[in-house]
């Protein structure tokens, strides 16, 4: 199978316009005849549900939470990028595009990224009209802050709760459609299988998490907006219920999984403090605007930070990257933290942390200014660590945060299964091998508000749909598969809890498929994962009922999927022998330890086809052509 990205022709700036013009439309009166199933209610899912509901489609929206507003987009802190150039500092669509392609280490599709940069402008307008309380300046204009990987201020923010406010905007728009009955809401539902009939995605099987009932839902198209797979690593900044299940089951039904090894490790998280920990907490990257990152110059210098004089401190980011300093992209910042900690200069009890120091900023701007900018983040830090960041520097360490990989989609956001569209973090599309800060919110909303309304119409308007009801054999088969898997989990009756097994998987991935990877480690991980998977099915304990709320059963199912998924993640990492973005391969680095890309051999999207749980997935390549941004070794020096 050849992967066709269906990127429209013509010059880059006009591609999206041209594509919209050439796309088929659906007559307003006919739209309600089409049922669109949307799984997930984060930024991508909620925005898609509201925009498609407004257009008049019959939308069914599903989420695993008790309310759509709990989707993990809500936890995004820092902000959302847009090429508004309100600050008159040289920003433009062209520059946002350029920064994003470069930030992604030249592993994204140019046309997608350009479209994203174009649409970024509309997103801000839309969100402000919804009443999103973005920060303002005294004159009433919108305020911006700068973020890693950019030299302009283009990030819009609402305190440290930008994701929350954007999600609530999208959620409220969606609830408006629920009231108008154009969107039907199915909360507490977990999608457990995709139903494919004659090559088209025609429905989903989901479990009602309250009653345990296995439900069948049919439609004309399925939109997966189910987020990323960061919790494969057990400890991550993702919510504890985030999972790969929906995407993985779609993958098993034929959707290719692209670039799973591109995982983003966020540099500013609160360090791990013990084995009891269930998740890691992110401290917004915006902190790096005013905070300075340092470690002691001497190995094993265990003095309290205040007692370490200036000359004994190594502000290593400022030293190594004078032009970007503390604002280097995430992958660079994370890797450097690992390097200094590996050298033995890490701080804190575990030695796995570096300082993020606001001492200078407080001296320069005063505590009040810092409190206005980061007050809630500082409070959060204090709550978790019981330390006061106004007095002593924060300790931070990288943690899994975002996954650039995801189901492969074409320019229309359609996967390799006709009708199955994938939006937001769940797809692989726009961030290449590394995502810049404040770009995830931008992508989720661009996909939902501004891309899918056009590309879905193109699909629905140009496709013949045989009549399919939930009595169809394909629904029965999928439903039986789901039921069988649940029964198998409940009947395992072993001794180990899903959490113990998940934690072991997470440790394995963090050690061997984490910030730095090598051939031997990845090989070892592959062997261990399959052993762990066997152990899971023999020894997992899932007590409790099937016909009732059973969070442990839900969790066990997700861990089981991670144990399958982890293998393709590792296989992808193993095959990509270059370093790029969020994937640092130790065998491929420059003499001064920077990531070394191999454009000659790896300038492609690796899309994996499922061949069976124990069989090696098949690699398909979508070559990447760079017409407008010429790949160069990324330098932030």
């Amino acid at each position: 199978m050849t992967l066709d990205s269906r990127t429209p022709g013509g010059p880059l700036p006009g591609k999206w316009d041209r594509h919209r013009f050439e796309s088929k439309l659906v007559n307003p009166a006919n739209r309600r005849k089409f049922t669109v199933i949307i799984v997930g209610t984060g930024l991508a899912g909620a925005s898609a549900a509201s925009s498609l509901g407004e257009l008049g489609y019959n939308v069914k929206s599903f989420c695993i939470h008790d309310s759509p507003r709990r989707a993990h987009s809500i936890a995004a802190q820092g902000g959302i990028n847009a090429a508004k150039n309100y600050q008159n500092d040289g920003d433009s669509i062209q520059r946002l595009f350029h920064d994003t392609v470069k930030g992604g280490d030249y592993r994204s599709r140019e046309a997608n990224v350009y479209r994203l940069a174009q649409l970024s402008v509309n997103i801000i307008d839309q969100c402000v009209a919804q009443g999103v309380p973005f920060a303002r300046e005294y004159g009433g204009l919108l305020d911006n802050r700068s973020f890693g990987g950019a030299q302009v201020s283009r990030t819009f923010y609402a305190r440290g709760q930008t994701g929350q406010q954007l999600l609530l905007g999208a959620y409220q728009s969606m609830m408006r459609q629920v009231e108008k009955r154009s969107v039907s809401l199915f909360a507490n539902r977990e999608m457990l299988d995709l139903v494919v009939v004659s090559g088209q995605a025609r429905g989903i099987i989901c479990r009602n998490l309250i009653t345990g009932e296995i439900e069948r839902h049919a439609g004309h198209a399925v939109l997966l907006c189910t987020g990323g797979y960061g919790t494969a690593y057990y400890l991550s900044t993702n919510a504890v219920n985030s999972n790969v299940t929906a995407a993985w089951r779609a993958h098993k039904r034929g959707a290719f999984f692209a670039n799973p090894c591109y995982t983003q490790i966020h540099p500013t998280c609160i360090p791990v403090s013990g084995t009891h920990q269930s998740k890691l907490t992110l401290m917004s990257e915006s902190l790096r605007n005013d905070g300075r990152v340092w470690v002691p110059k001497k190995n094993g210098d265990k003095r309290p930070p205040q007692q370490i004089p200036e000359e004994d401190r190594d502000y290593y980011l400022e030293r190594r990257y004078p032009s970007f300093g503390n604002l280097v992209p995430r992958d660079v910042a994370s890797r450097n933290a690992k390097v200094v900690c590996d050298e033995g200069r890490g701080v804190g009890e575990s030695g796995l942390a570096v300082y993020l120091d606001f001492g200078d900023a407080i001296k320069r701007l005063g505590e009040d200014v810092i409190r206005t900018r980061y007050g809630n983040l500082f409070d959060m830090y204090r709550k978790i660590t019981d330390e006061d960041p106004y007095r002593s520097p924060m300790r931070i360490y990288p943690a899994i945060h975002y996954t650039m990989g995801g189901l492969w989609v074409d320019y229309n956001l359609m996967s390799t299964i006709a009708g199955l569209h994938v939006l937001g973090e769940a797809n692989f599309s726009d961030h290449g091998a590394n995502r810049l800060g404040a770009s995830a919110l931008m992508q989720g909303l661009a996909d939902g508000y501004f891309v899918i309304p056009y590309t879905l119409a193109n699909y629905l308007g140009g496709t013949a749909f045989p009549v399919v009801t939930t009595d169809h054999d394909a629904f029965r088969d999928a439903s039986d598969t789901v039921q069988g898997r649940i029964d198998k989990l409940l009947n395992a009756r072993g001794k180990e809890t899903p959490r113990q097994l998940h934690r072991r998987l997470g440790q394995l991935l963090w050690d061997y498929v984490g910030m730095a990877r090598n051939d031997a480690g990845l090989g070892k991980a592959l062997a261990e994962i399959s052993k762990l998977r066997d152990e899971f099915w023999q020894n997992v304990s899932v007590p409790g009922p099937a016909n009732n709320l059973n969070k442990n059963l839900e969790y066990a199912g997700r861990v089981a999927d991670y144990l399958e998924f982890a293998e393709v993640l590792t296989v992808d990492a193993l095959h990509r022998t270059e370093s790029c973005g969020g994937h640092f391969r130790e065998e491929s680095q420059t003499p001064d330890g920077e990531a070394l890309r191999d454009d000659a051999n790896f300038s492609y999207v690796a899309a994996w086809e499922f061949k069976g749980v124990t069989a090696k997935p098949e690699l398909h390549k979508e070559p990447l052509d760079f017409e407008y941004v010429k790949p160069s070794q990324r330098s932030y020096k």
Partner: protein
Amino acid sequence: MRITLKVWRQSGPAKAGTLVEYAADNVSADMSFLEMLDLVNEGLIARGEDPIAFDSDCREGICGACGFLIDGLPHGPVRGSTVCQLHMRSFSDGDTLVLEPWRAKAFPLVKDLVVDRSAFDRIIQAGGYTSINVGGARDANSILIGKDTVEQAMDSAACIACGACVAACKNASAALFTAAKITHLSLLPQGQVERYTRVVRMVDRHDDEGFGSCSNEGECEAVCPKEIPITNIARMNREYLKATLMRGR
């Protein structure tokens, strides 16, 4: 640290419930309250017993999924915090803690500490938005909003819909939740168009869901993890007064 828990166990809405005692051993002071519960559940699962059901997701105090009463206080004894952000260092070795779910007619119990808060969604559904479709928005900077105004709106918009306000209120009123959204939108220019229809529709829906009326005591404010003040409720009342008596909605 060793903590004794008395947890409300109830296998379903129609079933009888009771407090069941559990011992949590080897609790570290750095654990969050939910991590301590995870630990208890790990023990239960390993013994083949049904673990304690409780909601949680982001575990950083923003999604609003978690919440139950600890010794009669929603989200426990620490102010401005959800249970996921509450750490065991707030308790002492040997403490006995009673855990109960939110209780309100409008929040039917699902299981153990989990309740159904979909009534909140339906309140938002009634009018907690600006009725604008995607595509027609004008340039964001063409709407000027004062810094103070937007900060005030943000204070209200920070609500996470956890339900602690309802749980704490002796009348099981969702006035604070409803008022926070009404205040957020009524402060901003974008919310003016539907200002008066919004307040009456949301209050009507609030009542239809079976919540009580505001007690004006402010227990809600005291337990709110986002510390949203009851001045929001006063504003809602005023907006309602204007909408009904002066504008005949």
